């Protein structure tokens, strides 16, 4: 390119697609994992073991889901980071 290198050119996909690629698959997997977990474990029993007596079931499902989503999103985020070719990282630092 003759003109100045696009400062974003080291990225491989657009921002919207990156955000979707992090948040969306992790949402789906967290949903499945969370359902599977609560199918096997009754939040009521879980509350007894964990020593949280005021754990409502809806609360447990919801917090469980949000925590799993956070974990899977973190994994997707790291994957996206690792997907960047190394030479593009060099390009970035060269600027």
């Amino acid at each position, binding site marked *: 390119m003759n003109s100045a290198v696009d400062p974003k050119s080291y990225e491989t996909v657009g921002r919207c697609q990156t955000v979707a690629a992090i948040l969306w*698959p992790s949402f789906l997997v967290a949903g499945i994992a969370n359902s599977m977990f609560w199918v096997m474990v009754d939040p009521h029993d879980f509350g007894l073991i964990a020593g949280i007596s005021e754990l*409502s079931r*809806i609360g447990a499902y919801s917090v469980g889901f949000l925590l799993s989503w956070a974990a899977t999103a973190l994994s997707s985020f790291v994957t996206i980071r690792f997907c960047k070719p190394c030479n593009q990282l060099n390009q970035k630092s060269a600027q």
Partner: protein
Amino acid sequence: MSSPSQQQQTEFVVEEFYKKREKIQPRKVKGLFAKLRILGVALLLGLYYFLPWINLNGSQAVLLDLPARKFHFFGITFWPQDFFYLAVLLIIAALALFFFTTLAGRLWCGYACPQTVWTEVFMWIEHYVEGDRPQRLKLDKAPMTARKFRIRGTKHAIWVTFSLWTGFTFVGFFTPIRELGFSLADFSLGPWEWFWILFYSFATYGNAGWMREQVCTYMCPYARFQSAMFDKDTLIISYDTERGEPRGKRKRKLDYKSAGLGSCVDCTMCVQVCPTGIDIRDGLQYQCIGCAACIDVCDDVMERMGYEKGLIRYTTENTLEGKQTHILRPRMILYALVLTGMIIGLGVSIATRIPLELNIIRDRNALYREASNGLVENIYTLKVINMDEQSHHYSLDISGIQGLEVIGLKDEEIQSGEVKEMIISIRVDPIELKSTSTELLFHIEAVDNPDIQQDQKARFLGPLVN
């Protein structure tokens, strides 16, 4: 230094990824496939919005009661223990998707996907408030005035209201919807209910109002692997290049064939109606969701021109190549057989399902205990779940060791939907033990209905004396 061709490639890539997304303003379309889609929308959204309001014997007919861990579906109550049925149902859904994709491409995307269905409603609202494509394009370009603000405001207000109703209905599948309505009205709604209503509303508003075709292009897993299910006999929406090219504008009366033109009048209507903004004349593309809007609009144009319909149509690769199309092919037959088999299997399995569950947990604190009279004792916690609609008395029969004694067993009526926990101890003369670990068979049966029975195994631990 990179070679010129490499440079070109980089330039292309950058342009491809960083061209700002242009808002797509599809033109409204009338025709056979548009009618089918309206039917799909009415049916699916009708089910979605009204199902939670249907009552059966005084309680909500479809209620996935998460707080109580019971899932009511038209008189049948499922439990977390019935997870197997859900797994089978999901496999059936996946197989059905394979079947229909192989048959006629992305039928799911075009007529039944929630993304399509809700986007369709959002576009109706948009069309109603802002007008058709030309008016909307004009409005997009216009500077913000009081009039534009009013129009945009109205659209978003209707969108948000509709989304909130959608979010409310969603939570209504999990919490009794009437109670939910009352608690909403007197502001006594719990924080999690609020959270999920707003979450789902926001998702609807964002996906159907703003994201639209980007969801299909960037977020849909199915779109990524649908091509693997296509073959040369799959019905796909195609532009008949042979017939259409060379395209060009012309007068209606012109004998276009002698003028060296094809049937395509290059009116670009197929591009204007496309909700994903592609030109079907460029061939089958990943972005095409199979909505067939281009077929409807092109047929209309062909009719007005006095040409034969079907320049864009559902057809197969084989037909386009002049070969024969086989709808009934091994792949289709196999999918159909497996699908039918699984549906029948699931139906039979649900129909003959035994609404009783017995869980046995051996006391983990001690291997065994010696009772005062020289007998060896093991403790068990029994969990009996009555999944039937009526209450029952049950009889429990334990076998496996000669002369075993059961202590602590009570004959109690267990209500419908009740989980009864019982702690029992089993005492055995150690002489009867052939091994340090012996299998016991627990047989439980409803007293009034011998068909309701379950067998479970557990182990008895004890010392070896001989």
